[in-house]
């Protein structure tokens, strides 16, 4: 007996073959499952079926204290845990009305941008792997490893960083950050260059990506797209600029905007964003150096956090798009309700429209380019 009736959905015609892609499939990132109905290789209908990685994060949050929930947020988008931590911390800080010291904000910016680079590297690398180009993945993943080295050496964790505390950050940047950073920066650029050389103007790559799963700006907004995928559709929206947080208004950077919203545009937007992130880190580090070395890293927050009753929503631009936390408090030490607004949740629900009429191979490319992370999708 099959537990999930969706797999038994009888489609009107036996002309089509129903193929279950996932939940265990080489190119499903995590445990996704897509029930596709195909006519030959063309997709007639694709129905995502999620929940295979559902761990009840929101329910869990209701019984933990505010600090205890930070490690849980690591497990949302495990490719870039830091923006998750910071987004949650920002939500609680907003609820408490705490102002975070500038130095802590700069450290957060530096770390978040590093995480953004790491996330984009994985996304582009995996996109390449899913389209059969293995080598760029390794060029990028080696540099991501270097970024993880920095994370590890900052607070001992590589993937699940549990970065920061409510009200600031727990540690200052180590002294030789500049050295490491100057060493890392050219390598990241070089890896990006190599990737560009191998992919961007490669005719096969262009054939495989241009015009695939194109989405209009209107549809994308209607569907709740955010982040690189929305910008690839031609909407210039970036929370870092539109609703600045963490001193992002002090940095100068470009927001790349695509045109067609296809896989190629998403790829290019991510490539350019990595470059912009490098610039942001440079500027942030410059500002950081101007700070006195004994500037506070934490705002004054009580040991046991009991925010006043109320509810706030706070969002930031995670590598994938708008990552928001809605926190409702009833005045006790446990959050009353935590709602996570994961970016790829909104994008994945548009999958049936994105891939309709495309081929199975394009479905894979589309999922990779949306950067679906099962951890934050299923929570």
């Amino acid at each position, binding site marked *: *007996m*099959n*537990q*999930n*009736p*969706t797999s038994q959905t009888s489609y009107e015609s036996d002309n089509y073959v129903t193929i279950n892609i996932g939940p265990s499939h080489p190119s499903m990132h995590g445990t996704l499952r897509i029930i596709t109905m195909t006519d030959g290789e063309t997709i007639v209908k694709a129905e995502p079926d*999620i*929940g295979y990685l*559902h761990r*009840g994060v*929101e*329910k*869990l949050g*209701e*019984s933990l204290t505010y600090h205890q929930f930070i490690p849980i947020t690591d497990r949302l988008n495990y490719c870039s845990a830091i923006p998750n931590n910071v987004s949650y911390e920002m939500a609680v800080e*907003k*609820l408490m*009305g705490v102002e975070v010291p500038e130095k802590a904000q700069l450290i957060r910016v530096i770390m978040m941008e590093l995480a953004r680079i790491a996330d984009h590297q994985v996304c582009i690398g995996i996109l390449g792997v899913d389209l059969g180009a293995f080598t760029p993945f390794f060029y990028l993943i080696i540099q991501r490893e270097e970024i993880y080295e920095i994370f590890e050496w900052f607070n001992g964790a590589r993937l699940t960083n549990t970065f920061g505390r409510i009200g600031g950050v727990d540690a200052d940047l180590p002294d030789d950050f500049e050295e490491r950073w100057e060493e890392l920066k050219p390598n990241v650029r070089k890896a990006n260059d190599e990737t560009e050389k191998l992919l961007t103007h490669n005719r096969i790559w262009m054939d495989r990506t241009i015009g695939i799963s194109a989405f209009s700006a209107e*549809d994308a*907004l*209607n*569907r*709740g797209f955010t982040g690189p995928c929305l910008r690839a559709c031609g*909407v210039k*929206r970036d929370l870092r600029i*539109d*609703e600045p947080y963490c001193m992002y208004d002090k940095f100068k950077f470009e927001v790349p905007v695509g045109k067609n919203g296809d896989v190629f545009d998403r790829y290019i937007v991510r490539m350019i964003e990595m470059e912009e992130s490098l610039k942001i880190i440079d500027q942030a580090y410059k500002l950081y150096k101007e700070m006195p070395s004994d500037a506070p890293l934490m705002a004054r927050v009580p040991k046991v956090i009991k925010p006043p009753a*109320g*509810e*706030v*929503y706070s*969002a930031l631009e995670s590598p994938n798009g*708008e990552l*928001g936390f*809605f926190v*409702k408090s*009833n005045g*006790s030490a*446990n959050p*009353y*309700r935590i*709602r996570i*607004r994961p970016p790829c*949740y*909104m994008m*994945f*629900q*548009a999958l049936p429209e994105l891939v309709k009429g495309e081929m199975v191979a394009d479905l894979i490319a589309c999922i990779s380019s949306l950067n679906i992370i099962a951890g934050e999708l*299923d*929570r």
Partner: protein
Amino acid sequence: MDLKKRVEQYLGPEGLVVAMTECQGDLSAEVPKKNILDVMHLLRDTPDLGFNFLSDVFGVDNLDLNKPKKKPKKKTEEGEGAEAEEEPKEKGPSPPRYEVVYLLLCLERNERLQVKVRVAEDDMEVDSLYPIWKASDWPEREIFDMFGIRFKGHPNLKRLLMWDDFPAHPLRKDYPLEGQGEERHLVYDD
């Protein structure tokens, strides 16, 4: 003119807004459940408001909040059987148990607004926003999954995260953390 005044100006006269609250700069407007589609149309199409982006939809269970303050919170961790009987009866009619919260965003002015709908336990049906914003597709399914609130007009209202014959709605406050022994409902393929 600040957002609160504008919202009141456009929604107030028609009685479309029940209450407005503000918390740390986040404005939320509670609207009557039956008018939710009208409100959303107004909010989206009025040029002065222009909330053209639906950021998120989610549910909140106010079971514990509605209870008198002095009740110890530990109650929730014990079985839900005892909990369900302890409906607060003290202060007249208690407010409806569930809330559905819509997070709206105006892209032009970067303003955010929370729109709330209260859903009582005896009438768990809300109009779906799917005709306005397709973004509400999965969030509404998830609310159905987690709270059991149904959405009228939703094209595909199935459970999203839990499997289809899961017997409970886990994000309700009376659902214990350890589960209710759903293992017995699992039937595996041989």
